[in-house]
């Protein structure tokens, strides 16, 4: 009753709003310019390897670094470098960026050929060269994730797509299922992973059916129907659902024998291994009440959100919020003129009707936040500890385990800013050196 292992970790039932699930991917007219950030991943920022005036082709490396935890950056259009400068990103950081004026020809670099992969080392080198980062949203360089020391027994493929509105991973399953299995097979082969579990939320029956049918031809690969309970796609939650293993504090999934990869990441990996064209474009879901045309589009990385909005018929009324990502964890942009990055999977143009505005009142200690937290944290108590700046208590209550999934803030009847206080509590803990 109190301490037994639950079959599913906590979470919240959110409105799915998957309006675009049947919108096939399409391309929009190429933008005239792109702004490509040199930091599109967790880890070290890349250094531009081109200068103003250089002619570049699509797929050419324009930024790289010696650091291990990083992924190279490629030109997403062909054309001329017009500017190499720092720009302010959506998260408020100044990041170096390369601006390219497209020549409209979309010429692919002639020396791009499928990588020669023969063993684990050449495979990991190819993954790094592809520029792949976790496309589910985290943006962690994939070659780093695939290079663990301990033995891996299970590869978990994340097709949960638990965020409302977003359907770009679903479209990957429906349109590029062969690529997904090709990518899985490659990872399995070079990393010697016996078991593969593809986790998909139950609200996507067509994808479950399609991948389950195909999985019959791949021994060791099975599809797992996840409950449609946000946040099933969060790494630790998915690992629990797929393997019933609990990721201990401070450990990586590889430490418990698991690697998690997003479906679109393995799909892309397959296309890279076949063609040699690195990560230069991304499928994103465009939705929300404030945009005329909704759907899934494939866009060059570095395209301005403003341009995407115009290509999708422009705004309907005035957008109240523009989100990079889903409504549960996405970042609210302060301006539409922000470039698309690798790990974006949706741009949502929300109007006031799409947002639930609630008054913030006193905590009534209802305990809903505790029930909603997938990790059994006590968000209301954490808020109190943060307000008291009580570092020892923040530490005891494990604020550091919070992944900021948003369940507590979502469910709170008093609309307390619980995620915000956890975020700030984590900073407080980090700054105190604990």
């Amino acid at each position: 009753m109190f301490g037994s292992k639950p079959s599913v970790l906590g979470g919240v039932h959110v409105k799915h709003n998957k309006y675009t699930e049947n919108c096939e991917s399409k391309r929009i007219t190429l933008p005239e310019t792109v702004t490509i950030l040199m930091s599109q991943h967790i880890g070290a920022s890349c250094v531009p390897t081109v200068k103003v005036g250089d002619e570049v082709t699509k797929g050419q490396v324009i930024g790289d670094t010696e650091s291990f935890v990083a992924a190279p950056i490629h030109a997403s259009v062909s054309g001329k470098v017009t500017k190499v400068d720092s720009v302010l990103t959506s998260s408020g950081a100044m990041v170096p960026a390369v601006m390219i004026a497209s020549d409209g020809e979309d010429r692919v670099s002639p020396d791009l050929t499928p990588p020669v992969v023969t063993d684990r080392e050449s495979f990991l080198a190819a993954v790094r060269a592809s520029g792949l980062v976790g496309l589910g949203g985290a943006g962690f360089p994939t070659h780093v994730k695939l290079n663990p020391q301990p033995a891996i027994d299970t590869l978990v493929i994340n097709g949960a797509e638990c965020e409302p509105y977003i359907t770009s991973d679903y479209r990957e399953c429906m349109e590029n299922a062969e690529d997904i299995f090709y990518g899985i097979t490659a990872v399995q082969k070079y990393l010697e992973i016996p078991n593969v579990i593809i986790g998909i939320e139950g609200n996507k029956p067509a994808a479950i059916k399609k991948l389950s049918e195909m999985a019959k031809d791949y021994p060791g690969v099975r599809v797992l129907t996840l409950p449609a309970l946000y946040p099933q796609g969060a790494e630790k939650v998915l690992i629990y659902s797929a393997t019933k293993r609990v990721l201990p504090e401070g450990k990586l999934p590889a430490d418990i024998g698991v690697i998690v990869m997003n479906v679109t990441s393995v799909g892309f990996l397959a296309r890279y291994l076949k063609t040699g064209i690195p990560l230069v474009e991304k499928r994103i879901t465009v939705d929300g009440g404030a945009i005329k045309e909704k759907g899934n589009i494939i866009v060059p990385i570095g395209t301005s959100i403003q341009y995407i909005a115009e290509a999708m018929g422009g705004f309907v009324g005035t957008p109240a919020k523009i989100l990079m990502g889903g409504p549960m964890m996405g970042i609210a942009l302060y301006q539409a003129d922000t470039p698309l990055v690798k790990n974006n999977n949706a741009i949502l143009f929300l109007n006031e009707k799409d947002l639930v505005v609630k008054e913030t009142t006193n905590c009534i200690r209802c305990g809903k936040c505790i029930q909603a937290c997938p990790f059994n944290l006590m968000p209301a108590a954490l808020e109190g500890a943060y307000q008291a700046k009580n570092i020892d208590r923040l530490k005891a209550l494990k604020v550091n385990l919070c992944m900021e999934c948003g369940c507590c803030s979502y469910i709170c009847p008093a609309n307390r800013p619980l995620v915000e206080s956890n975020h700030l509590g984590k900073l407080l803990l980090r700054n105190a050196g604990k």
Partner: protein
Amino acid sequence: MDNKLIVTGAPHVKSANTTQKIMLYVILALMPSLVAANIVFGFRSTVVVGVAVAACVAFEYLFKVITKQKQSISDLSAVVTGILFAYNLPVSAPIWLVILGSFIAIVVAKQLFGGLGKNFANPALVARLVLFVSFAAAMTHWPAPYYYKEVDMITTATPLLLLTKDPASLPSLMDMFLGVRGGCLGETSVLALLIGGAFLLWKKVISPIIPVTYIATVAVLLWIAGANVPYHVMGGGLFLGAIFMATDYVTTPSTKKGMFIFGLGCGILTVVIRLFGSYVEGVSFSIVLMNLLTPLIDQYTGTKPLGGGK
């Protein structure tokens, strides 16, 4: 248009659940008991409840005006307090007593401690206990069921008193279940309280842990002590207390473990007071005592974070 974009932290969508909605569900869940009270004790039940609600809301409104704080009556918690307080009164309670109790509940027990969410004990119960020890005669004057149909006021003893004094004149068990017996106006009908409790469980407003643990503990301990279990369990304010007062979020633990301890503690205290104390009823004292212990319970019943190390 850029400068009009709203920039906040995630999540950008929120559930439709609000404090006001929760309170509204509790009010709805309390309505079957009001119907039962009107049948058993007449329309004066509605008058007592109406006065208590109006007084509670008015005191909260005035307190906020005088202390220059943001109004909070729209959260409906004062309405819930008013109803619960009235349910803990005999139907014959004088109107001035109802208003005085509402003042104690809202101003003394709730607002002086910081308003909703900050009160240390259930406001309605604090008010009841203050009146109970201060105005014992008025608070233990029990009009008999259907007295309003008679010419003269007929009074009765509550079943818990009859158990010790005059077991022969106890009402039938069916009357006990339906609420045709002497007692506080909102506590007598077990049936009506169960309907309300089922509604709250269905709407997930309350967890069954506290009511079930509380009632089961009382039943088991009384059974061990050789007492008359059905009359004891249905005779006092146990169902009203267990379903509607011991589940008040603010003054009870919010983890499952804490709720279990709270229910157990309430059960033990109730039985101890009833069997060994000088009062025949012990629900109000037990819940308020456990309210006071809630911060301590909270301290030892925190959840264990998943994967958390030392």
